[in-house]
């Protein structure tokens, strides 16, 4: 494997054993960026000089014989809706095209303690609204497995970078599947932790009660390591949970004997790509061979999850995005006669179509006369969706289903029909509504060698079990060693 193809845990050992230097590694990844970034377009901002300077500093530490942390000196990327002090953070929107946060997100502070090499900020659907990264106001990102195809979204840039070798690890965010679905489209590992496991302070809010930051990595081992680094109670986030953070790497054991796996019957009917269904079911069979037990379960309110999500998320987004008004940061429209005109012109001009659409849906659902029938109703059905999971988890330890109903589709194929796009989220949104953790691991390909991901869902705060199941499955296969051969046009 080339250097830029290696996972972080291998590279860490190589650094410790002085087989490579951080500078060599960083230069290798930067060279890879030079080679393929033109085709992949995963990044919005590349901080080349800062990355090289950090790599050199880490090398000096190693030369002095100092101990280094897991991620120290290893190049990674950050989704551009996570605030990085002094580094432009655009959320892939024109309205923040020059915005430089004067503060760091808590996850950045936690990462910094590890001293990694941050290569830059990755592309996303504008304000994390979308499932293909086509809603970026700058440019789409292309799937490294087939550059005609989308990488998924909204964390498409992060997933594509890890898959293309232009980042060893990355952070993404997940509100309705935005880590899990692009991970599955790009053949990498992506995890959405339990809601509240990772601080949201500094994550530009889309839907406050659904957003979570999570790792996107080449394998499950790296995922567990990064979760260790970013998890934990944050005094700046009232919704971050005051719970112990276990050592997630201790969950990396191959053992699923007696594990009960639930297969929700509702997830395997509606217009699912038969190859996706087959790959996931094969994955489950593998786990059965290794000692797990499969139980058919029912999550009866699954049909309503998309509606629930597409009322709650836009409603919260409508208020969260009200602040983009040209007053104290971001772009401001010129030639406005008064404040209201300025705000309206600014938002109309600088916000993208999908963002505007969701804001309007949200305000509609919250407006006088409609609140009870829409927003309030959705909050009630949300409780039912969660109760479905609570009931199921009385009988099973994990739930498995696909991370997406299809493989990556062609760029431009679905973008003109918003509703059709929304229906793609069927496998992922219920988890955000219930606040449960979920991980997507590669489990095969379709006939066109496009990756398919298997989603493993756990009980609240039980990332350990889903990591264990994911690790066991991963180690029984070799998908984590496959790398996208860039090309495919």
């Amino acid at each position, binding site marked *: 494997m080339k250097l830029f193809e290696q996972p972080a845990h291998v590279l860490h050992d190589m650094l410790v054993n002085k087989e490579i230097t951080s500078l060599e590694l960083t230069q290798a990844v930067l060279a890879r960026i030079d080679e393929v970034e033109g085709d992949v377009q995963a990044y919005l901002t590349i901080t080349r000089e800062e990355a090289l300077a950090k790599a050199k500093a880490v090398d000096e530490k190693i030369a002095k014989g100092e101990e280094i942390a897991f991620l120290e000196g290893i190049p990674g990327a950050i989704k551009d809706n996570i605030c990085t002090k002094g580094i432009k953070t655009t959320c892939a929107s024109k309205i923040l095209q020059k915005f430089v946060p004067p503060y760091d997100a808590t996850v950045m502070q936690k990462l910094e303690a590890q001293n990694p090499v941050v290569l830059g900020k990755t592309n996303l659907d504008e304000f994390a609204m979308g499932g293909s990264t086509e809603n970026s106001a700058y440019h789409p990102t292309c799937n490294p497995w087939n550059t005609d195809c989308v990488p998924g979204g909204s964390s498409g840039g992060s997933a594509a970078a890890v898959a293309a070798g232009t980042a060893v690890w990355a952070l993404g965010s997940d509100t309705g599947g935005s880590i899990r679905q692009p991970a599955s489209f790009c053949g990498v590992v992506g995890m959405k932790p339990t809601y509240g496991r990772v601080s949201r302070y500094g994550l530009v809010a889309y839907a406050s*009660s659904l957003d979570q930051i999570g790792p996107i990595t080449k394998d499950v081992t790296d995922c567990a390591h990064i979760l260790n680094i970013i998890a934990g109670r944050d005094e700046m986030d009232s919704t971050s*949970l005051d719970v112990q953070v276990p050592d997630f790497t201790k969950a990396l054991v191959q053992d699923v004997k007696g594990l009960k796996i639930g297969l929700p019957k509702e997830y395997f009917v509606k217009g699912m790509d038969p190859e996706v269904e087959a790959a996931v079911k094969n994955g489950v069979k593998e786990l059965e061979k290794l000692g797990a037990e499969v139980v058919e379960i029912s999550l009866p309110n699954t049909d309503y999850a998309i509606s629930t999500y597409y009322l709650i998320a836009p409603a919260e987004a409508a208020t969260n995005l009200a602040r983009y008004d040209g007053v104290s940061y971001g772009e401001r429209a010129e030639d406005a006669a008064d404040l209201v005109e300025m705000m*309206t012109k600014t938002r109309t001009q600088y916000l993208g179509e999908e963002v505007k*659409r969701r804001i*309007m849906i949200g305000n509609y659902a919250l407006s006088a006369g409609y609140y009870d029938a829409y927003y309030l109703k959705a909050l*009630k059905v949300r*409780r039912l969706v969660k109760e479905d999971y609570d009931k199921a988890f009385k009988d099973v330890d994990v739930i498995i289903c696909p991370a997406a109903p299809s493989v990556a589709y062609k760029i431009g194929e679905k973008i003109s029909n918003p509703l059709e796009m929304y229906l793609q989220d069927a496998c992922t949104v219920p988890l955000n509504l219930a606040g449960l953790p979920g991980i997507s691991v590669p489990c095969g390909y379709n006939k066109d060698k496009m990756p398919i991901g298997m989603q493993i869902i756990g009980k609240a705060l039980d990332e350990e079990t889903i990591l264990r199941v994911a690790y066991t499955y991963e180690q029984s296969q070799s998908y984590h060693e496959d790398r996208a051969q860039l090309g495919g046009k």
Partner: protein
Amino acid sequence: MKVTKKDMENVAVLSRLSIPADKEELYTQQLSDVLEYVDNLSAVPTDDIQPMAHVLPVSNVFREDVVKESLSRELALSNAPLKDDGYFRVPKVLED
């Protein structure tokens, strides 16, 4: 639920957005499609169900009343579109 032209106008004002005339029909259609889809929720019986605004049962998260360092004024204004002597400057505000 079919979205009317009046609804669109109202929602646009609430969103501080203006809809170009040539896009009005498209936006109205797209919004209607979504809202008609989400109407399927009305089939779910929820009379005795409490709304769930927070996913996990957390309560009483507080901080102590201790002063922390503020941002320097320079940093606070660093992204301002228009500044004036340490203030954020905005155009004419009509009564609201």
